[in-house]
C-alpha cells in the first residue's frame, strides 16, 4: 500500500480548488524538458509490458483469424442474443475514449488546473481507445472485408443508406470523434515535437521531427494563432464529447426492447463514459507517476481533484441505475418490470451486482479525502471501475436481448473462447499503441506545464510577473 504521508514539498490542502493546482517542486522550464523527456528512454520493464501487450494482441489476431475462417458461429451468439461481447466491448472502448477529450477540452474551457499534467496521456488514450472501439463493429459484421458498406455514401449496389438509422448516425459520430481527437492530440503535440527536434542529435531523427513539427519555431505569432485555434478546437470538442456517446446510446434507446427504450440513455451513457474514462486514466497515470518518478507533476492534489470528478460521475451513473428501476416500476409495463427483476434477482443477478458494486458502491469511498489522496486505493478502484463499466454494458446488451417482449424466445448467452480472445486482444492492441506512444513522444504537455511554472525574471517584483 502506498503511504499517506505527504511529500515535504506538497502541503496537505483539505479543500482543493481544482483551478488552482500548482507544481511547487517544478521551478524551471529546463527542468520540465529534462525530467519529462528522460522517460523516453526504453527500459526492461517497458519491453516487458510491450511483450505482454503483443502476446494479448496475438491472441486477438488468432481468434479473429479463426472466426473469419470458421464463420461468425464460433462466437457465442445465440438468437435472439445477436449482440454480445463485440458490441459490449465496442461501447466500453468508446466510453474509455471520452475522458481524454473531456480532460483536454471541457476542463480546458473551465480552466481546471488539474488537467495540465494528465491531459496528454488522456488524449493519447482517447485516440487509441477509439481506434480499438472502431475495430469491433468490423469484427461483429462477420465479413470484415465488406466493412465499407457501413459507410453511407451513395452507391450503385442497391445499398440505400437510411439516414434515420442510429447505426448510420454512429458511423458519422465515431468518424468525427476519431478525426477530431486525433487532430486535437496532434496539434497539441506540435510545439513539443519542436522541443524534441531541437534536442535531437541524430540527423535522420532530427529531420523527421522537423517534418512532424512543421518547422514550429515558438514565435509569438505562432503561439497567438495556436492558442486561438486550440480554444476553438476545445469549443468544438466539448459538445462533440457529449454527442458521441449520446449517439451510441441511441443505438439502444431507439430499439423497442425492454431496458433500452428510455430517454435517460444519453446523459446516462455520457456520465458512464466519463466515469470509465477517468478510471482508465488512473489505471495508466498512477503507475506512470510512480515508475517514471513524476509524482511532483501528477501530485496528490491532482489525484484528489480527479477523484472528485469520478465521485460525481459515479453518483450520476448510480442515480441513472435507480431511475431505470423506478421508471420500470412506475411505467407499469409488465415486460419492463419483469426484465428489471430478472436483471437484478434472476438470470443475470451476478452481472448486475458486479456492476452495482463496482460503479455505485465502491466509488462512495471517495467521499473520504484520505482515500482520494491514496494512489494505491485509486489504482485498485480504477480496476474495479473498469470491470464494473464493462459489466454495465454487458447488463445493458445481454439481459435485454435474452429477455425481451416475446417470452417464447427468452434464452441465454455464453461467450466462447473466441469472444474472450478478442476482448483480451483489444487490450493488447490498446496498450501496444500506448506503450509505443510513451517512448516516442512526451507523455505530458511540455509547453502547457511551462505555462504554470514561473518564468525567470531579472527584477524580483516586476510588473511582468507570471500569470
Amino acid at each position, binding site marked *: 500500500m502506498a503511504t499517506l504521508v505527504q511529500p515535504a514539498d506538497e502541503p496537505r490542502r483539505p479543500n482543493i480548488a481544482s483551478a488552482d493546482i500548482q507544481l511547487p517542486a517544478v521551478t524551471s*522550464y529546463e527542468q520540465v524538458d529534462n525530467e519529462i523527456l528522460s522517460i523516453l528512454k526504453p527500459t526492461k520493464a517497458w519491453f516487458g509490458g510491450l511483450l505482454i501487450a503483443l502476446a494479448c494482441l496475438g491472441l486477438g489476431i488468432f481468434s479473429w483469424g479463426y472466426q473469419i475462417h470458421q464463420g461468425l458461429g464460433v462466437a457465442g451468439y445465440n438468437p435472439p442474443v445477436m449482440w454480445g461481447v463485440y458490441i459490449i466491448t465496442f461501447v466500453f472502448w468508446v466510453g474509455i475514449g471520452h475522458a481524454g477529450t473531456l480532460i483536454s477540452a471541457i476542463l480546458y474551457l473551465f480552466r481546471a488546473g488539474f488537467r495540465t499534467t494528465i491531459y496528454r496521456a488522456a488524449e493519447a488514450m482517447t485516440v487509441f481507445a477509439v481506434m480499438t472501439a472502431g475495430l469491433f463493429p468490423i469484427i461483429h459484421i462477420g465479413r470484415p472485408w465488406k466493412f465499407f458498406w457501413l459507410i453511407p455514401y451513395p452507391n450503385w449496389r442497391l445499398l440505400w443508406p437510411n*439516414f434515420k438509422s442510429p447505426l448510420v448516425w454512429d458511423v458519422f459520430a465515431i468518424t468525427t470523434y476519431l478525426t477530431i481527437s486525433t487532430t486535437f492530440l496532434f496539434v497539441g503535440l506540435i510545439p513539443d515535437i519542436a522541443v524534441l527536434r531541437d534536442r535531437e542529435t541524430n540527423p535522420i531523427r532530427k529531420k523527421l521531427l522537423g517534418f512532424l513539427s*512543421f518547422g514550429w519555431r515558438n*514565435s509569438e*505569432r505562432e503561439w497567438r494563432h495556436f492558442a486561438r485555434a486550440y480554444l476553438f478546437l476545445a469549443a468544438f470538442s466539448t459538445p462533440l464529447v457529449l*454527442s458521441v456517446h449520446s449517439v451510441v446510446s441511441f443505438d439502444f434507446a431507439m430499439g423497442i426492447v425492454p431496458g433500452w427504450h428510455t430517454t435517460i440513455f444519453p446523459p446516462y451513457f455520457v456520465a458512464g463514459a466519463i466515469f470509465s474514462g477517468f478510471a482508465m486514466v488512473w489505471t495508466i497515470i498512477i503507475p506512470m507517476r510512480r515508475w517514471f518518478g513524476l509524482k511532483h507533476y501528477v501530485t496528490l492534489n491532482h489525484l484528489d481533484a480527479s477523484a472528485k470528478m469520478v465521485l460525481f460521475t459515479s453518483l450520476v451513473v448510480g442515480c441513472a441505475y435507480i431511475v431505470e428501476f423506478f421508471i420500470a416500476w412506475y411505467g407499469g409495463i409488465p415486460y419492463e418490470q419483469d426484465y428489471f427483476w430478472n436483471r437484478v434477482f434472476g438470470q443475470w443477478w451476478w452481472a448486475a451486482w458486479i456492476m452495482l458494486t463496482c460503479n455505485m458502491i465502491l466509488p462512495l469511498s471517495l467521499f473520504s479525502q484520505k482515500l482520494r489522496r491514496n494512489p494505491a486505493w485509486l489504482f485498485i478502484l480504477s480496476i474495479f471501475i473498469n470491470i464494473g463499466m464493462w459489466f454495465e454494458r454487458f447488463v445493458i446488451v445481454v439481459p435485454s436481448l435474452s429477455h425481451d417482449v416475446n417470452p417464447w424466445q427468452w434464452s441465454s448467452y455464453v461467450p466462447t473462447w473466441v469472444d474472450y480472445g478478442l476482448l483480451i486482444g483489444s487490450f493488447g492492441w490498446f496498450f501496444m499503441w500506448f506503450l509505443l506512444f510513451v517512448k516516442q513522444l512526451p507523455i505530458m504537455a511540455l509547453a502547457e506545464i511551462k*505555462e504554470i511554472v514561473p518564468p525567470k525574471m531579472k527584477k524580483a517584483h516586476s510588473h511582468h510577473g507570471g500569470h
Partner: protein
Amino acid sequence: MMRGMIGVFHELDSTVDTIEELKHKGLGKLTAYSPTPRHELEHAIDPPPSGVRKFTLFGALAGVTFGYWLSIWGSMYWPLVVGGKAIATWLPYTVFGFEVMVMVGALSTVFGMFFLAGIPRLTDTVGYDPRFSHGHFGVWCECAPDKLAEVEAVMRRHGAVEVRGER
C-alpha cells in the same frame, strides 16, 4: 533577403523591455520567441487579433450545410418510403448537420492556424535558436544593415546572453 539581429534572453522581463525599446525606436520588424505562450510578450508586440475565427466560422457553416444537404439529398434520391412519415426530415438529420459541422469546422480551424502562423516551414531557420524551445526567450529584429549596431546595443543593455547577426 532577410537580415537582422537575434538576441537570446534568460529572463522574461528583459525580453519584454527589449521589445518595448526596439518598438519605441522603430528599429525593425520584431519577432518574439518563448518556450510557452506568454501574454506579456503578446502585449509588448501588440499584434492584431488572430484571424483563425474566420476560418472556424466558414468551416462550421460549410460543414453544417453539407451535413444537412447530404442527408436530405440522399433520402430524396434513394427514398425509403414509410407510410405517414416524411422522406426527408430535419430532426434526425441534425445529427449529420452537427457532426459534419464539427469535423469541417475543426479541420478548417487547424488549416487557418497553419495558414496564419506560416507553417509548415521546412527550410527557413534564419532568426531562430534551438534554445527558444527549451528555456530561453528570444527577440529577432529584422532591420536595415545600418541599424544592426543600435539593435545589438539595445539587446545587450537589457541583458541578452547572446546577440548575433543573421541573414
